[in-house]
């Protein structure tokens, strides 16, 4: 009996030791690994390939005809908005834009056509018949872009909404625009 009990205790202790080896909740620690090549992301405050109106440095991307301020995440653009981007050497890019056409202005203007030009060359035309939040994406032929240089993008709305009260002219609401893969 004693022998059996001792064997039982030994087996129990072995099991406990075994399980406790795996049960430890003490966090393991490691050294920093080999650093990998960083991906292309513009640094905050510098001109890059993508504009969000929430960016405090958004003005750096604006060349003309964009409202000087907005509520934070969007701004109105006017007749001939032009943006500029520093475009890196990347094999295949799309121009994308998140924008809105308010139902109220669209009711008065009718369908709006947006004409996209890059560095003075026509990229595309988009006819918008419905309002609301919209997303635009279009492949950009590589020869339209200057790699590692500033590229200008014009997005001309036609027609624009004209205020009967003060004659103010509004194109569309811009949230984000730029180049992506």
């Amino acid at each position, binding site marked *: *009996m004693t022998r*059996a009990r001792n*064997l039982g205790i030994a*087996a129990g202790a072995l099991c406990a030791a*075994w*399980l406790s*080896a*795996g*049960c*430890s*909740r003490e*966090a*393991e*620690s*490691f*050294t*920093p*690994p*080999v*650093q*990998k*090549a*960083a*991906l*292309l*992301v*513009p640094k*905050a405050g510098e001109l*890059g*390939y*993508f504009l*969000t109106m*929430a*960016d405090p440095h958004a003005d750096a991307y604006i060349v003309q005809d964009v409202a000087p301020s907005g509520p934070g995440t969007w701004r109105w653009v006017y007749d001939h908005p032009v943006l500029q981007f520093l475009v*890196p050497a*990347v*094999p*295949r890019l799309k121009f994308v834009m998140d924008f809105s056409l308010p139902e109220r202005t669209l009711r008065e203007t009718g369908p709006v056509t947006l004409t996209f030009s890059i560095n003075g060359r026509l990229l595309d035309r988009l006819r918008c018949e419905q309002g609301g939040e919209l997303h635009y994406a279009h492949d950009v032929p590589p020869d339209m872009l200057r790699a590692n240089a500033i590229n200008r993008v014009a997005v001309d709305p036609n027609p624009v909404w004209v205020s009967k009260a003060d004659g103010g002219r509004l194109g569309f609401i811009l949230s984000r625009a*730029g180049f*992506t*893969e």
Partner: protein
Amino acid sequence: MQALAIFFGALFTCAVSLAIGGLLLRDACRDAGVRFVAGAAVLSLLVFLLCAAGLAYPVIFAVAGLAAVAIALRRGGGWGTFGGGIPAPRWLWGIAFGAFAVLYLSNAMAPEISPDGSAYHLGLVGRYLREHGFSRPESLYAALPGGVEMLFLWAYAFGRHSAAALTHFAFLLALAWQIFAYARGRGFAVAGMAAALIVFASPVIGIDGTSAYNDVALSAIGFTLFHLLQIWDESRDPRLLWAIGLTAGFAFAAKYTAWPALVYAVGFVLVKQRKAVIPVAGSAALLAGPWLLKNWIYVHNPLAPFYNQLISNSFVTVDFEETYRRLMALYHLKSRWEIPMQVTVHGTLSGLLGPFFLLAPLGLLALRKREGRQLWLAALVFGVNYFSNIAARFLIPPAPFVALAVTIGLSAVPHLAVAVAMITAVLSWPAMVSRYADPAAWRLARIPWHEALRLWPEERYLDRYLTYYDVDRMIEAKTEPDATVFSFVPVPEAYTSRRVRVEYQSAANQIAGKILWTALAPEFVPTWRLRFRFPEQAVRGLRVVQTASGGDFWSAGEFRVYRGDLEIPRTPVWRLTARPYPWGVQDAFDNSLATFWICGEKLKPGQFVQVDFHEEAVADSVELEAAPNQWAGRWKLEGLDAGGKWRVLSPAPVASDAPRPLGLRRAVTQELKRRGIDYLLVFDTDNGADDLRLNTDLWGLRAVGSAKQARLYRLE
């Protein structure tokens, strides 16, 4: 020729098991069913040891098996007793058993098409044979105990897939025989015959027992243990004790859910004869222990893939286990009250036992007899874990005990048990089952004799009945022999020699899947920036601590420390850690937005990612670069001061968005390659399948093949 190889593989496995069983039990038990199962336990251990030693070669199996048979024959052990004592009406029993035997034999011999058998039971077996032993598990299924799969491996070495299924069928025969043999020995021959037929004919037992699964084998092991205990209780032959322990250990080695078998065996002998515990517990440990040890060595969790909260490890995340357990506990049901009809009649929980089992409460009538009480105790032992996985096949282990209790209960009325058994057999025939079961219920449907004897090509049958067999063919044709393929969808790994890493099957695979989504799903793109600012000061360490609770998760792409506008370079003296899941913390400090640390558990206050500088560093901000798919998380920054105390430096970060990084797709591809993946198998229904198809150049992929529903890409 192939049919002969199949027969040989299965018969050789059975012969070796019977021979070992005969050597083990000698005259203590001459029942062939008991000897087969007890011998199979030892054979399973032998194959495990050969796999552990990297010696899983057919020639070694052949020599060892022939030696076992030769020794058994020389010692005159024989093959044990089988048959005899069949009660009247024999012709009726013969027709009933014979019809199902033909159905089962043809299906067991036909090419293996069962979901789990073709996906992982035989996928693993094939891998063990190709690699001549075990390797570090890449799938949670490889961490489950594989006691029965060890026998499949032995059979597979000679007859491939169908030999393994046929070996499983031998367990079904051993089970049915023992139900009868046990009952006959206690004066219930008719009830035993009826229960044996009811179990034998059960639709889910039929399809499981003729596939490369292990539920019927476990059921046979369970009944053998019960049978051995009853025999020992009557004879007290000490030779039986080793067989009892080995069989109890074999039950655990077959499936974790059978752990109560260990308690049952030890408890039973403890009550009857205390000294008998040592051989029982010792021999049970001999069978069960190696599987725990294997997991401990490979994945640092003896009970992998479970109990990850208790035994933390990098192999399986706590969250996955919770999700898995939740899913297995209810499947698609709205309530557990649906279970009785589903597992007996409808069959949408992986098959049906048959309507007979709705009569289970009648088995309580048998409680008046000692045998009935013993049967119900065993049913409880082998059914107690059922609610951890409510699939019908998880009721196969207790089913024989219940069936026999019912038929003993019905024995009070002459011929009633026979009539019920015959009605059950009729209702269990495939043509009848299709009249009342759900059309999608897992069950046998035909007698594929031509395919069983390989008179018709195996390929045609597999192409028709095995989902994604064409995908396997594509993988075999388009990849190198040592290639590793990543997929979100499991494929029949039994029919490809390539390593297939399925997303959900381990933490490493889940992380690889999330890395892929980093460039596919907008919410996974690391565009979120969380900036913690604090007065410039010297600190010895910094950590971002999560403070919220909830069902969400969090992750960190990069953890950067700044002084002014300059990032403080990471140095080798830094020590990084995280809680939970510390093993991935380096991915938050590798300068790559394609990788990230994952929490692996739902949000709980106190989870953190930490850097210890091991010296003082002057800093004034920390930025976490992360994906925006973690809205529920709340964070604060703590600093380690010179006194070794953590103090809050910033109670909350300022969040902002950065543009999507350029080159992210290619970085993801490179990272997956770094993690050992050579090919992506993408099904048309996978999220992002179109992006991969349309942007192969941006991903750095090359399309190398396509099947009906999937495409294969090589990572360049």
